[in-house]
């Protein structure tokens, strides 16, 4: 049953050094506040899973929290490279990181399979791609009915998943809307889960715009809920605030330079503290 905690306490309780962590949100609702809290608490040796590492993992990698990243598209969307990711992969700063890369389709299916409690996902994928040559977690199976060769990947089962959402209600039920990505799958696939939200309301089913088939994750499937207003900036929250596209462009300059990056983290993360 979801417990209401401060972001500090939720991260302190559930994110352990060495853990496998999925912080999801496909462009939308990226849990930046939680990522910053992980950096502030100096977590180390994390294995991070995310389809698109985005700036949030670039920051965590640069801050030295990470030993491995599992991903399927590692760029700054529409801008260019993730310079901290590249610096770690190419030059080992601040530490060498391992990478394991998939395609989006495979990772989406792996999250789906994780939520479905399965050990593997099966897809018509990686046909002719050389990714299976560099990722030993991609195997092929034969369909027992048709003989077709299909790709198989292990399901994603993180120790802890963290997502950001629009609202929770007093009973701990969480609403996600707009681009829902793999947030629900990330929560359901994980052993422990933290949801940061823009706000707490009385009862989601009494909210204006409530829809019987809206993407609502019941409180009993979540471990901790923490309020983090504007918790996904510079990403965005549908219905709350837009994506800060200008910052995504600005990040390119900050992240290119180790010193500029370190200064930015110091000023905007370490000394900023938890707002909510």
């Amino acid at each position, binding site marked *: 049953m979801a417990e209401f905690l401060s972001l500090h306490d939720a991260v302190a309780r559930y994110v352990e050094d060495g853990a496998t962590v999925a912080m999801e949100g496909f462009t939308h609702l990226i849990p930046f506040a939680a990522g910053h809290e992980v950096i502030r608490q100096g977590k180390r040796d994390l294995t991070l899973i995310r389809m698109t590492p985005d700036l949030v993992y670039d920051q965590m990698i640069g801050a030295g929290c990470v030993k491995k990243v599992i991903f399927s598209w590692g760029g700054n969307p529409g801008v260019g490279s993730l310079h901290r990711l590249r610096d770690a992969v190419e030059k080992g700063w601040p530490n060498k990181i391992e990478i394991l890369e998939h395609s989006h389709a495979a990772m989406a299916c792996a999250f789906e399979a994780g939520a479905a409690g399965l050990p593997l996902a099966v897809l018509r994928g990686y046909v002719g791609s050389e990714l299976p040559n560099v990722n030993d977690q991609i195997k092929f199976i034969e369909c027992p009915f048709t003989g*077709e060769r299909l790709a198989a990947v292990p399901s994603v089962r993180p120790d802890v998943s963290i997502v950001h959402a629009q609202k929770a209600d007093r009973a701990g039920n969480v609403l996600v809307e707009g681009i829902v990505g793999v947030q629900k799958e990330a929560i359901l696939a994980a052993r422990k889960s933290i949801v940061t939200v823009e706000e707490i309301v009385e009862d989601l089913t009494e909210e204006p715009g409530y829809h019987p088939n809206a993407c609502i994750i019941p409180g009993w499937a979540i471990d901790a809920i923490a309020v983090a207003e504007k918790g996904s900036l510079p990403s965005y929250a549908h219905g709350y605030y837009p994506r800060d596209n200008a910052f995504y462009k600005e990040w390119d300059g900050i992240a290119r330079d180790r010193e500029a990056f370190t200064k930015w983290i110091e000023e905007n993360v370490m000394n900023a503290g938890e707002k909510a």
Partner: protein
Amino acid sequence: MSLEYTSAEMMTVTAARALQNGMACFVGIGLPSEAANLARLTHAPQVTLIYESGTLQTKPDVLPLSIGDGELCESALTTVSVPEMFRYWLQGGKVDVGFLGTAQIDRYCNLNTTLIGDYQSPKVRLPGGGGAPEIATNAGEVFITLKHSPRAFVKDVDFITTLGFGRDGKGRDNVPNIGRGPTRVITDLCVMKPDPDDHELTVVSLHPGVTREQVQEATGWEIRFAADLETTPEPSERELEVLRELKARTARAHAGK
């Protein structure tokens, strides 16, 4: 008829024209997205644009910077989860054409968005596969658009992230349940198509004012030209106007805040 336009505009307009009204198109971010939206705003108002963020039948007023900008969801018919997008819509065979960009492409249309150099110690680490590996095999066919340069057009890609026709041009032979693969490549210089027999890229149309030599210089292997080489039709005034307005709206929107 002597309109002023840039080679980039020529590329986008030509790429846009490849899309037919009524097609369902899985759109990559960047150049493909620009071309697909230009098509929607000009000759193909009923084209269905699908982005991997889950937005189905979207009609953005400004071009998204990312594959999941709010604009895409707000203007979509409906937005589904990312697993559903890849499973039901792409793998489920509902996509007529995948529209992709790439960092590297080779003579057999294989795409590399993973890295330059060796996998273990890359010279340049690129973003990776994203949606492309399965878009290229699960969509009915694939259009590719990118700027022509010898760095981009190489004889053999350093890494096949996404299948064109494989290292020998036969990578799709006898593979069941996949699409036709790349059917055209649109650059700022020309339009290319894979040869129907051996799948090697062949220039079928030069953009106005572009020479064979320019294309050859920008291509990292000895490029073939079709016997009936054509000249690509110029952009129309309306296409240029719509494209420029779209880009101006987009610039204003993204500069904001």
